[in-house]
């Protein structure tokens, strides 16, 4: 929108947050003292691993043979025709093993935990995709796995709960508060504080205390690296726009990061608009939030005047969260990433449209990106190219959508 007229300073794509984990005024380390040493050790272990060819090669092998990378960049011909404008390509992270991009990070962190000698893994999950990915990685590597999940999310994502349990994970329901992702993270952090010496916490998004936002981003960078090669091979040029949904923001930063220096590529993160931007009815942090500190970092939060965290709502459990990854806030300030939101109604409609036109059932989370992708495509000419990150598949959502449609 307006920010493109202000050309931002060039970005060094190998740049890291400062030693304290800050992306500008965002990020940092805001945790109880008990965790400070564990986070420092994790940062150090990651710093060694990321430069170790043995780690990189082993991870690459697992991503290929276990997860199914590379994923295809698919030309969505009928969605493109439907919109009548720019070409829409889908980055098919939905084709990965366990059904979403989450496996990139889960495999990498499980491998890192093994290197660190930690035999017990904990994780939080919202929609269940990160929980399922972590359960799969733990089964593969023979690690004990405990997943915290809000009781409300367990209901709306019952299939994923069963999957996790099949793969040997213990799923612990969280009854506190709103019984969704935020409460699951609180409970995972309480577990970590209690069992920190032998436990690694596989945080599922580009959020939390340093080094998580940087590390999770790095583990998803492969999405953008592949997409860049694929679009150059297919179209002979860079895309005009990239669009991805943003809960914590891991799939988005994974796709965007490789293109940050390509200033001609517009990037849009799509938040959950829920029932619209009214207090307690959405999860669009940039539309209704302000700066605050929650669960490890400083970033945009939905909060009331006193600083209490507000209730959120989204049709998609994976985007139903009161805070956004700090790096997104940083690039938004610099005008490099724009943000939009999609409402539940738009998402329900596009969920069906994509299924019908493309034979692809998208995750409700990813459908938020599709909603914006279709809007953008309509407004652009046919020679333009858009890549939408189809971060996950919608099998997990069909029961919920069926019930919602029956009510309409």
């Amino acid at each position, binding site marked *: 929108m307006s920010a493109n007229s202000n050309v931002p300073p060039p970005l060094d794509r190998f740049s890291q947050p400062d030693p304290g984990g800050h992306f500008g005024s965002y990020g940092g380390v*805001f945790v109880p003292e008990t965790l400070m*040493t*564990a986070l420092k050790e994790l940062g150090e272990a990651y710093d060694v691993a990321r430069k170790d060819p043995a780690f990189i090669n082993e991870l690459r092998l697992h991503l290929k043979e276990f997860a199914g990378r590379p994923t295809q960049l698919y030309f969505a011909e009928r969605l493109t025709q439907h919109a009548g404008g720019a070409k829409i390509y889908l980055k098919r992270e939905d084709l990965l093993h366990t059904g979403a991009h989450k496996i990139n990070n889960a495999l990498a962190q499980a491998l890192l935990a093994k290197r660190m000698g930690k035999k017990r893994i904990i994780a939080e999950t919202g929609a269940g995709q990160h929980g399922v990915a972590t359960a799969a990685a733990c089964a593969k590597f023979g690690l004990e796995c405990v997943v915290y999940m809000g009781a409300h999310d367990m209901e709306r994502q019952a299939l994923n709960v069963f999957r996790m349990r099949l793969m040997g994970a213990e799923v612990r329901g969280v009854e506190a*508060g709103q019984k969704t992702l935020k409460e699951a993270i609180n409970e995972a952090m*309480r577990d970590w504080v209690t069992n920190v*010496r032998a436990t690694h916490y596989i945080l599922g998004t580009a959020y939390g205390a340093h080094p998580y936002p940087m590390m999770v981003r790095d583990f998803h960078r492969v999405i953008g690296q592949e997409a860049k090669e694929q679009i150059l091979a297919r179209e002979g040029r860079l895309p005009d726009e990239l669009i991805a949904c943003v809960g914590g923001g891991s799939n988005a930063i994974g796709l965007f990061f490789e293109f940050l220096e390509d200033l001609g590529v517009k990037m849009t993160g799509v938040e959950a608009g829920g029932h619209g931007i009214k207090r307690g009815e959405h999860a669009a942090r940039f539309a209704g939030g302000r700066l605050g*500190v929650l669960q490890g970092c400083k970033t945009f939060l939905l*909060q009331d005047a*006193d600083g209490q965290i507000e209730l959120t709502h989204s049709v998609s459990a994976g985007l139903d969260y009161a805070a956004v990854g700090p790096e997104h806030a940083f690039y938004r300030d610099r005008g490099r990433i724009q943000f939009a939101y999609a409402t539940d109604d738009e998402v329900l409609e596009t969920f069906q449209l994509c299924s019908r036109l493309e034979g692809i059932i998208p995750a409700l989370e990813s459908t938020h990106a599709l909603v914006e992708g279709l809007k953008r495509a309509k407004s652009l000419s046919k020679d333009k190219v858009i890549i939408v990150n189809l971060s996950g598949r919608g099998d997990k959502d069909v029961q919920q959508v069926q019930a919602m449609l029956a009510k309409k």
Partner: protein
Amino acid sequence: MSRLTAAFDRARSENRAAFVAYLCAGDPDFESSVAACRALLANGVDVLELGVPFSDPLADGLTNQLAAQRALEGGMTAARVFELVRKLRETSQVPVVFYTYYNLVFSQGVEAYVREARAAGVDALLTLDLPPEEAGELIAACRQHGLDTVFIVAPTTPESRLQVIAAAATGFIYYVSREGVTGVRDQVAQDIPAAVARIKRHTSLPVAVGFGISTRAQVAEVGAAADGVVVGSALVNCIRDNLRDRSRIAPVLAAKAAELSAGVKRTRA
């Protein structure tokens, strides 16, 4: 000298540890909470730690989570928490430490919050999710307005961080004797004397020990090694157990505080 320092000095001059009592402000409602705090203050409490209820208390166990939830559901707000302190100040000069989460401070503007806390009669801030590395703004504001900044040392804190924490802390250092969240435990940690001695190599501040201490015997045991003993969940449970007849909360707490604070009376020969 701050009220907090004076309280620890007085306990030391009496050859005993200070008794630090925790309740969540506004649990279960404002009036009951005022009465509950007064019951503590009249029964041997040297320092009152007031939990400021937060929607996402990730360092707290279930007992304190539910207390915060009751307080918030009972209508507690930032303004009411300050009002509670002003109310206590009408009758008591016992130091009050806010046990809080950083967003409740940060979201108000750090300096403005600290100024208001001071005006209400708060003596110190203990911000659970704010390590010294991120606390520059808070420390500066607290120094400016004369509030102490209490920081936590954990069993996992290495020697190298003790210096950083000692440099940031005033009033006292809070040693959490166990990895984990707040809550009652059957036994107190075994290695408290060694841990307190380790901390004292880096600071002349008093060291108070908490997490899991719930009986008079435990208070006495910890009080023999530390400058202060913190009891929280055992007191909060007195509120939890009397929600049906809230008039009982204050007398039950008075008896409990008297019983527990007696534990510090005989801590040193």
